[in-house]
């Protein structure tokens, strides 16, 4: 629920961190499961990898790379907030984290396309 008291940028930064974290945690088992075919059944792994040629799967991969990037950069912001001398520029840092994640995921997408 976006209640009035939550309408501040750093609350959205929290939502992004939480959503990306949960999404990555749910993706991990799938990722591990597919890779575990590599040794005994490489043809099954190839079967999965062929999916990645599809545009929609490429878009999903772009999304995953973005989530990974934004969770990492956003997490680094939080650790800097906790462990380095206080900076009042947290909104700028949060925006920069999202921008850096976007840059990385676009680079990935353009290479994959």
């Amino acid at each position, binding site marked *: 629920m976006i209640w009035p008291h939550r309408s501040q940028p750093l609350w959205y930064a929290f939502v992004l961190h*939480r959503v990306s*974290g*949960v999404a*990555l*945690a749910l993706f*991990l*088992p799938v*990722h*591990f*499961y597919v*890779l*575990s*075919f*590599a*040794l*005994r059944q*490489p*043809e099954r*792994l*190839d079967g999965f*990898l062929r999916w*990645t*040629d599809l545009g929609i799967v490429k878009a999903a*991969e772009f999304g995953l*790379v973005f989530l*990974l*990037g934004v969770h*990492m950069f956003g*997490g*680094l912001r939080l*650790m800097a907030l*906790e462990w380095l001398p206080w900076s009042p520029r947290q909104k700028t840092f949060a925006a920069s984290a999202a921008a850096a994640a976007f840059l*990385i995921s676009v*680079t*990935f997408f353009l*290479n*994959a396309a």
Partner: protein
Amino acid sequence: MLDLRLYILQRVTALIMAPLVLGHIAVMIVAVRGGLSAEEILSRTQGSLLWAGFYGTFVLAASVHAAIGLRVVVFEYAKLKGLALSLFTWAVFLALLFMGTRAVFAVTAP
């Protein structure tokens, strides 16, 4: 719900993973060029202690980090607590560690 010990574990695993994530994304950007194939992935990773160490560390840190992260989410939204919450945390950790180790073994075993 998050005590000092879990807080330290969460931050330490995050710090370990930061460079690993950057490395992983770099590998992905390079590897994805010209499409992915099992053969291409295996030719890079099979029998490599370096990649086994890299992704083995990654799997261990990610399993701890995801288990603690999901613990907080499940506590806050599903109101799970006490023993049930501890069991949930351990189950997530062990499941991810098992599946992740199996995957790392599959791509790096000689």
